[in-house]
């Protein structure tokens, strides 16, 4: 399943170290590594060292959640695509 349909959307990525980063989704790869542009740290800025960072690469293995805006994603389409893929993988 490719995630190209959410590229360009504003997302919030929550990491396993409890850091939450808001940004525009630039790209995703096969490992679910994420590249975000125009980032900002959503939680109260307990991480000051990100001040001069505009774009970042997040390793897929450290992502806990990717929060998407509900109205910008067609969940029905997504469900169908995921179901089809699960069926294919089963065979």
């Amino acid at each position, binding site marked *: 399943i490719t995630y*190209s349909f959410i*590229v360009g959307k504003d997302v919030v990525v929550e*990491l*396993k*170290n*409890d*850091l939450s*980063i808001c940004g525009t989704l*630039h*790209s*995703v*790869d*096969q*490992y679910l*590594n*994420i*590249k975000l542009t125009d*980032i900002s740290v959503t939680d109260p800025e307990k991480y*000051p*060292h*990100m*001040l*001069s*960072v*505009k*774009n*970042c*690469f*997040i*390793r897929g*293995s*450290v992502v*806990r959640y990717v929060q998407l805006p509900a109205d910008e994603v067609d969940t029905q389409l997504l469900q169908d695509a995921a179901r089809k893929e699960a069926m294919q993988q089963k065979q």
Partner: protein
Amino acid sequence: MNYVPGTASLIDDIDKKHLVLLRDGRTLIGFLRSIDQFANLVFHQTVERIHVGKKFGDIPRGIFIVRGENVVLLGEIDIDKPCDTVLQQVSIEEILEEQRLQQQTKQETEKVKMQVLKDRGLSIPKADNLDEY
């Protein structure tokens, strides 16, 4: 990370100044010189930046090879973006002392928390090594 357009590749970040956050909480800043499919990174003119509150200190580290599994986040440092206005740079000795104090208080609160949870028969696994066996 493969060389297909639209995928999250680091190839365009080479030779630029970056900040990398490691799983153990360390922050390294340096020029990214080499990458591979595991997000293993080679940093040049690396500096380890320690943050405590509003203060920070830099420790020069030279050339660093970071194993991909330890990378949390890699960010390009934008020199145009105004940054060091709120942060105050201090000497290495001072920041290490501040860090030691911070770790101490953190460990103490963590210890109390663990004890309280233990008394109730609960335990929270550390997210850091969930994927490891």
